[in-house]
């Protein structure tokens, strides 16, 4: 059984007990435990079920590489699936449940898959479930989906907070082991701005477990002293619980800081995403121990050798009472020695090498541990827990020599440097055959903005496995990174490490070497996704020879650990199957993040109200307080209608239209874009921007103008006012202000940069109100201060003045066909002006109206709306707007495009009015159908509706649409489709439905 040892672990505080629950059981651990160590201390070896076969799964590692120990953590709004128990620090009240089983962890019906596993080799699902066809959707797929997945789906909204932080550094060091510490120290000494991050809660990495001597001190003391030194350096920032998650182009690094996961009672953000710009990055990310591939290596109790040591030393937890160590290298002997010294049984060390010599081997032997060279494990015995191992010759096919009873197997297949961050941005790897590992190729680093390498790798991550090399390499990497970032190294002594003498490892990719199919089909490569040696071999046999094919066909390395344990073993298996060298098979691509990071931290503070900015006008509060039903228009929110109690939105719209037509309506038009264009060449410039002539507009007058893209399509419209000799004010649509401003700057900066024109976007300087309706003049006269009579301020003119004490610019323009003034006042006075209008207008029936009433009234008058009549494929000619296209101008933006053959095609659909025969409203988006079908069997069409409304003024449906030869077909009845298959008939009419002679506006 696994249990807590008498000697306290390095990291746990035995004086502080912590209670938690697992699958409803109340358990106790200590402060400093991880959830994994606490579960092991409670003899909870089995922690989950595998993805495919639902086999029992126990902890196999002690860190971020753990593939098995995944739990549902927390509940309600802190519920989180797939939480890795080896990186979850224990806290009081922690609640965890195991995953992927039904009805329980101990008795999972899904385990039936394991008995049928011979029918479920790699890719079996590509070969079956094909017939009968409907079964995939209705039976097979739902079944597979239920069986797959891991944790439960969260249900509640996350109430924690998250944030981002932007920071720039000269040198970013990832990894707080001795190499990273040395690198940060040497880079810091040079004066560079340095950040050092470590993903765990503890500095020192493996060194503080295995405790070599550095500079004559224990590793523990050296680490403590170095951390202290770094903390004292003002130019160095160090962070625990912060993972270097991804390296991106031009030195961008994401670091993922977990602030309160270990202490949920603390205030502040739960996670922080550091968005770092680093000139140089040092990856001192260490290495991950590889499992060995033997039959039954997935049974709970088979654990990586170094992890067994971690649990014993860091947490005072023994994984088992009797541990068989199986290895191909010397390092695993440390585990045997540690356990033996802790008073536990080591029945044998099974060493696949034919012979080896070294200090650790000697020490193990001296402790009386039996060492068997040239041997391997034929098979692990046990179901939910290891009960023993069968030993065989490594060179053979698995004939059992001896069985040894044990409850833990500590395995080591060598070490794989963590090269993820090096590789994220294109750093290349080389195969180190001696150490059987891929390590960064220093000649081919990822290249930065200047074309030079911007990542250096250090220590174990660089393929150095011995303390002396590791620490020297870290020190040198910090120096060279600082130098590359522009800092001179200070003379300082590199730390010196000491090592035990170790012999070379012998690569072992399968145990025993000649294992039978039966054994290979029980030798796991990917523990979570259930990929075995036989699966990769099958992929190769079937032609899935590329490493990417094999990965995708078998799903090896695609689990939540992203193959941290399985990739190299899988690769070696594939290479062997193809009779190829490992480096020739290549690796799969490493992609960020290193380990999964929360979606919430990616979103950061941008949640709820802060999800996206909402742009508000000075009158927004009034709208909200008065029933505004909003519609988003870009980032603005405009009242669609002001709904009163007892009204539907539709009722409100109709009321607003009728009231405006009969009395007085007020529209908050502040969102309309207002661009000032000024300069000696402003007229010439606007003649290029607009299809019509603007240079000849008289001062004091307004003119409606159209803008097209260079591709000829209508992009915006609005009223232009000539302010003075060299100044024009251009109104744009609500969505157009920033876009058209940018469009103007583009041409001024990049094409006609010698033209003397300045543009300023003054949209938000002004609150603008449209005062519309028969009583419009009356209310303005009541406010007083300006002559707004027909004679002094005729249609399409503007004037500056004072209205009711407000500085105002009044435009006599109309988008509704009514007598109408648009009045601009400084935004700071907008709300007061709005209130003044409402008060003064009360006796005249003043009533605000929203965008829908605006739309209906303009449609009744046959005015086009950008975004309704236009959709990016419509040219002004389609809308019969030839009158607004200057014939005199040689050039304007879009002119050349409109000369292309398809643009000049007489068969382009043209704008007309449409009146339903039965008075109903044509559905939005309906098409006018024509006879027959096209070559692809689609029904022919001859037009479409662009705007369609119920007109409360005319009390019937009205519409505008683009129709083939429409203007030549007045009076003709055509049919529009409905989605239910029926049609509605409409007569082609003039597009002006209301007050054709303009009598209402010209008063």
């Amino acid at each position, binding site marked *: 059984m696994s249990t807590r040892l008498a000697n306290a672990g390095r990291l746990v505080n035995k004086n502080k007990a912590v209670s938690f629950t697992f699958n409803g059981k109340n358990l106790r651990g200590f402060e400093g435990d991880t959830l994994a160590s606490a579960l092991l201390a409670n003899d909870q070896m089995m922690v989950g079920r595998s993805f495919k076969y639902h086999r029992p799964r126990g902890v196999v590692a002690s860190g971020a590489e753990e593939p098995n120990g995944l739990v549902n953590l927390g509940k309600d709004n802190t519920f989180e699936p797939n939480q890795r128990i080896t990186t979850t620090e224990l806290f009081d009240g922690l609640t965890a449940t195991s995953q992927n089983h039904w009805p329980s962890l101990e008795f999972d019906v899904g385990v039936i898959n394991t008995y049928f596993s011979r029918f479920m080799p790699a890719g079996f699902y590509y070969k079956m479930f094909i017939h009968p066809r409907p079964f995939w959707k209705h039976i097979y797929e739902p079944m597979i989906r239920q069986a797959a997945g891991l944790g439960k789906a969260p249900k509640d909204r996350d109430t924690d907070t998250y944030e981002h932080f932007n920071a720039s550094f000269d040198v970013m060091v990832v990894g707080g082991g001795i190499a990273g510490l040395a690198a940060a120290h040497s880079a810091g000494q040079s004066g560079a701005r340095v950040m050092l991050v470590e993903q765990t809660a503890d500095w020192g990495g493996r060194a503080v477990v295995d405790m070599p001597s550095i500079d004559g001190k224990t590793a523990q003391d050296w680490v403590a002293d170095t951390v202290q030194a770094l903390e004292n350096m003002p130019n160095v920032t160090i962070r625990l619980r912060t993972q270097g998650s991804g390296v*991106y182009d*031009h030195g961008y690094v994401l670091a993922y800081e977990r602030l309160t996961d270990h202490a949920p009672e603390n205030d502040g953000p739960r996670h922080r995403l550091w968005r770092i*710009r680093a000139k140089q990055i040092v990856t001192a990310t260490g290495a991950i121990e590889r499992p060995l591939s033997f039959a039954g290596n997935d049974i709970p109790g088979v654990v990586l050798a170094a992890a067994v040591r971690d649990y014993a030393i860091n947490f005072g937890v023994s994984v088992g009472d009797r541990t068989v160590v199986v290895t191909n290298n010397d390092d695993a002997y440390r585990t045997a020695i540690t356990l033996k010294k802790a008073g536990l049984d080591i029945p044998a060390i099974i060493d696949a090498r034919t012979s080896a010599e070294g200090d650790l081997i000697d020490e193990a032997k001296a402790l009386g541990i039996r060492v068997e060279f040239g041997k391997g494990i034929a098979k692990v015995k046990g179901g939910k827990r290891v009960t023993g191992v069968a030993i065989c010759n490594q060179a053979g096919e698995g004939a059992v020599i001896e069985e040894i009873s044990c409850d833990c197997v500590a395995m080591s297949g060598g070490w794989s440097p963590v090269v993820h961050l090096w590789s994220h941005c294109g750093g290349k790897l080389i195969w180190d055959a001696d150490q059987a590992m891929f390590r960064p190729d220093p000649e081919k680093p990822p290249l*930065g*903005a200047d*074309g030079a390498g911007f990542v250096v790798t250090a220590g174990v991550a660089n393929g150095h496995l011995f303390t002396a090399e590791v620490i020297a390499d870290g020190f040198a990497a910090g120096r060279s990174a600082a130098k590359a970032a522009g800092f001179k190294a200070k003379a300082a002594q590199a730390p010196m490490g000491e090592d035990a003498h170790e012999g070379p490892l012998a690569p072992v990719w399968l145990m025993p070497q000649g294992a039978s199919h039966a054994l290979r089909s029980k030798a796991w490569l990917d523990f979570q996704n259930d990929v075995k040696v036989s699966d990769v071999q099958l992929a190769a046999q079937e032609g899935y020879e590329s490493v990417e094919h094999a990965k995708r066909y078998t799903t090896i390395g695609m689990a939540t650990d992203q193959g941290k344990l399985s990739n190299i073993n899988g690769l070696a298996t594939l290479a062997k199957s193809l009779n190829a060298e490992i480096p020739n098979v290549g690796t799969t691509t490493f992609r960020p993040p290193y380990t999964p990071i929360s979606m919430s931290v990616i979103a950061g503070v941008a949640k709820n109200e802060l999800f996206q900015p909402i742009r508000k006008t000075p009158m927004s509060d009034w709208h909200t307080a008065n029933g505004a039903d909003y519609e988003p228009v870009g980032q603005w929110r405009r009242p669609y209608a002001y709904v009163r109690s007892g009204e539907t939105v539709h009722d409100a719209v109709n009321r607003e239209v009728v009231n405006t037509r009969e009395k007085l309506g007020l529209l908050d038009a502040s969102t309309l874009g207002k661009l000032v264009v000024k300069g000696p060449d402003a007229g010439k410039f606007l003649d290029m921007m607009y299809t019509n002539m603007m240079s000849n507009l008289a001062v004091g007058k307004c003119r409606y103008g159209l803008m097209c893209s260079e591709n000829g399509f209508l992009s915006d419209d609005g009223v232009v006012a000539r302010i003075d000799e060299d100044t024009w004010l251009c109104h744009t649509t609500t969505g157009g202000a920033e876009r058209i401003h*940018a469009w103007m*700057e583009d041409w001024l900066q990049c*094409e006609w*940069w010698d033209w003397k024109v300045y543009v300023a976007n003054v949209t938000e300087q002004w609150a603008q109100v449209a005062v519309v309706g028969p009583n419009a003049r009356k209310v303005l006269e009541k406010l007083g201060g300006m002559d707004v009579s027909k004679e002094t301020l005729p249609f399409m003119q503007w004037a500056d003045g004072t209205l009711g004490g407000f500085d105002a610019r009044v435009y006599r323009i109309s988008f509704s066909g009514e007598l109408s003034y648009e009045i601009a006042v400084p935004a700071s006075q907008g709300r007061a002006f709005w209130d003044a209008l409402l008060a003064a207008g009360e006796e005249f029936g003043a009533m605000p109206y929203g965008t829908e009433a605006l739309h209906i009234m303009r449609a009744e008058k046959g005015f086009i709306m950008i975004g309704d009549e236009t959709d990016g494929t419509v040219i002004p000619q389609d809308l019969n707007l030839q009158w607004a296209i200057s014939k005199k101008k040689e050039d304007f933006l879009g002119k050349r495009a409109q000369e292309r053959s398809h643009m000049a095609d007489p068969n382009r659909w043209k704008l007309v009015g449409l009146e339903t025969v039965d008075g109903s409203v044509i559905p939005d988006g309906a098409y006018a159908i024509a006879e027959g079908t096209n070559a692809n069997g689609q029904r022919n069409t001859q037009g479409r509706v662009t705007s369609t409304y119920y007109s409360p003024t005319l009390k019937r449906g009205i519409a505008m649409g683009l129709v083939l030869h429409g203007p030549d077909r007045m009076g003709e009845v055509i049919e529009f489709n409905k989605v239910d298959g029926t049609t509605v008939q409409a007569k082609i009419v003039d597009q002006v439905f209301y007050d054709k002679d303009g009598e209402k506006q010209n008063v």
Partner: protein
Amino acid sequence: MLTLHCPNCGVHADETDLHAEGEAHLKRFASGSSDDDFHDYMFQRQNPKGVHFERWKHVYGCGKYFLAARCTATLEVFGTYSAQTHEPPQAIKDAITAKRPGWSWGDFS
């Protein structure tokens, strides 16, 4: 995540402060030009895998355009320069030649 030096305001700008504005040094063809010329001006892009010239706008910064010489295969930046020019300055061309001998792009080399 690119960073580009804005030659207009001196800021070493994060990509999120910038907006990519497409190929640089396009020659505008207006009314009266041939269909081919107009087509090429509007749609025919160099799209090289390698040295490229492009427009950027420092949209969240000084609001000005600038041009960049960049490698689309490695994202290396050879230099940024004023948008008010019809061809890359010699210093930029030299910087590219030093890194990518024999390069060419449109009419430039």
